[in-house]
């Protein structure tokens, strides 16, 4: 009797301890780290927290890093074995890591995924996460640029509709230019930074060029148009050293009649512009000519050094599944053509969004190329030299093309 009880007791004990061991193992949490520049008002932090709560076996640590530091921090961390599992990286710099194998190749995982489907994404963003035919990340959001214009000033000058070609743009800017009242015809950015390239490439592309063909005749014409605008002081000379946000600030305060900028400006403009305004597609080289635009914003990627690729990919799937909340809750545009952007109820904003969405169809990625920063620098140098009169647009772009050929040839 005692032995039987004893045996039963032993079995019970053994089972319970096995069970508890089993559940203890199941409770062994996997921790994944995510780095992104989003703060509490933006998607990543919130989605990371939600994912953490949804998945009991996965703990998420989130670190907010600043835009300027993303790549250098990532490189430093990667070199010392401290890289995070997931990072949000600016799209032109994606190839820098992907080409060197620092990011995880997720082509197969995506193929097997129900949530992520490459066909849903706009061509530009998808292009930026691709290298050598394989997928190394998932676009997080996207943005582009278009022409904002001051409807009140248009009405005063008798202009009925926004310009459709480059020549029309220059003409309209001349009409709106009013130095006596401190109003410039146009504002944009030609700064010696990625912003300058971001603004110039669409023009070059519409002219039939591209980063690998930066001295195409159309691109040279684009730079000549820029030079005309600067020479005639249709835009502020400070355009050479000022970014898009500050230039649009001058538009909002009524000191520029038009500005080329992106959807990130919408909230501030709605709050602070004391006039009626609208958005138009970027003017093309000729009537009905090829359209192009810049492509900004970030991509998600998993580092190849991750210890938990499956969990990390699960997180990416979750983020992608929430793309329909990106705009209503956070004001960012998802990089997908299959997600509906709901009306916000604010007339100006909705009208602007329609234009941006249309412009997104023509947005082209910068690169992708692992040496993108050097390519971008060659283009920036050309812009600065041409606009300060140190070289003609043709000569400046020829030199840039030579430099870029050297980089691409490697």
């Amino acid at each position: 009797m005692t032995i039987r009880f004893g045996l039963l007791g032993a079995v019970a004990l053994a089972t319970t301890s096995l069970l508890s061991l089993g559940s203890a193992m199941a409770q062994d949490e996997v921790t994944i780290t995510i780095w992104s520049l989003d703060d509490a008002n933006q998607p990543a932090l919130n989605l990371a927290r939600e994912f953490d709560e949804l998945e009991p076996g996965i703990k998420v640590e989130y670190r907010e890093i600043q835009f300027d530091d993303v790549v250098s921090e990532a490189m430093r961390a990667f070199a010392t074995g401290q890289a995070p599992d997931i990072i949000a990286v600016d799209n032109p710099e994606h190839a820098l890591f992907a080409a060197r194998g620092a990011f995880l190749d997720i082509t197969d995982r995506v193929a097997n995924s129900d949530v992520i489907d490459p066909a849903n994404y706009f061509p530009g963003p998808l292009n930026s996460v691709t290298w050598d035919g394989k997928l190394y990340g998932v676009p997080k959001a996207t943005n582009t640029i278009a022409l904002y214009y001051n409807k009140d000033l248009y009405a005063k000058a008798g202009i009925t509709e926004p310009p459709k070609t480059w020549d029309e743009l220059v003409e309209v800017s001349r009409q709106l230019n009013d130095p006596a009242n401190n109003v410039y015809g146009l504002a944009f950015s030609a700064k010696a930074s990625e912003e300058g390239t971001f603004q110039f490439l669409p023009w070059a592309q519409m002219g039939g060029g591209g980063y690998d063909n930066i001295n195409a005749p159309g691109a040279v014409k684009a730079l000549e148009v820029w030079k005309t605008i600067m020479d005639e002081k249709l835009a502020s000379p400070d355009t050479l050293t000022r970014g898009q946000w500050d230039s649009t600030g001058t538009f909002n305060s009524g000191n520029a009649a038009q500005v080329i900028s992106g959807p990130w400006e919408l909230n501030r403009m709605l709050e602070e512009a004391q006039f009626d305004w609208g958005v138009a597609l970027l003017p093309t080289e000729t009537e009905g000519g090829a359209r192009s635009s810049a492509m900004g914003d970030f991509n998600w990627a998993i580092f190849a050094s991750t210890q938990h690729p499956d969990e990390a990919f699960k997180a990416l799937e979750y983020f992608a599944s929430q793309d329909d909340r990106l705009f209503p809750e956070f004001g960012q545009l998802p990089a997908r053509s299959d997600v509906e952007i709901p009306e916000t109820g604010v007339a100006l904003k909705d009208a602007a969004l329609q234009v941006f969405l249309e412009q997104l169809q023509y947005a082209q990625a910068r690169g992708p190329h692992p040496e993108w920063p050097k390519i971008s620098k060659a283009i920036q140098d050309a812009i600065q030299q041409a606009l300060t009169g140190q070289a003609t647009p043709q000569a400046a772009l020829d030199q840039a093309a030579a430099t870029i050929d050297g980089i691409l040839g490697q």
Partner: protein
Amino acid sequence: MNQTWTQRLLLLVALLLAALYLFPLYWMYVTSLKTGSEIFATPPGLAPSNPQWGVFGYVWELRGMGRFLWNSVVIASGTMVLTAVLGTGCAYVLARYRNFWIDVALFLVLMLQVLPASLMITPIFVGFAQLGLLNHPQLAVVLAITAKAMPFFVVLVRASFMSVPTELEEAALVDGNSRAGAFWSIVLPLARNGILVSAILIFMQAFGEFVYSKSMIPAVELQPASVGLNAFMGPNTTEWNNIMAYATIYVTPILAAFVILQRRIVAGLTSGALK
């Protein structure tokens, strides 16, 4: 009568000079009250047209500034103390002697601060990662900033020690003090003001340091205020008025504290402490 008029005139000139020099500070205060785009309006408004007084409360809440400021105080004090402890003795010896080895030491001290923090961060990060110091982020930052600030402290304090006459120290030694005793009770008090001013400058410099803190302190709860300031800059947007409001909250108390402190130190100087 003549003297009061001269004094009044001097005061007026001083106020004018200060007003001129402090214009950027005024601009910082004014910008925090302006709306985002008003900053870019031509002609520039010398006073905000629609002061946004709520911005200070907003920024304080949004960034949890209380905690940030506390972290800044911790890091800056740690740096100040460590620098003062290590640097004072070094400066004393470098002031006391003149020979080849001292020249070498002085040269090294100067050279070792030549690189800006942005170029030092990568090797320091790598080194600290290997030593495991990154698990104690605030300590790591204090060590890094001390290394950056110490040469500055040593060079300045050495100049202070140079103004202490050797005869006083020798008299103390003759009286039977040990070297350590003479240093502690005679020389140190006489150079005290230079040391204090330099220490305060180090504190202020460490308070504003952000390159090391940004990279070595990933956890938001431990970050100093300077890192929080940088977080207002997004990839395309920059909330200038919030940045200026944040900076106002951060700069004003330190400046006020300094104005009060330095007055007492320099007052001590001019009252003939040496004699």
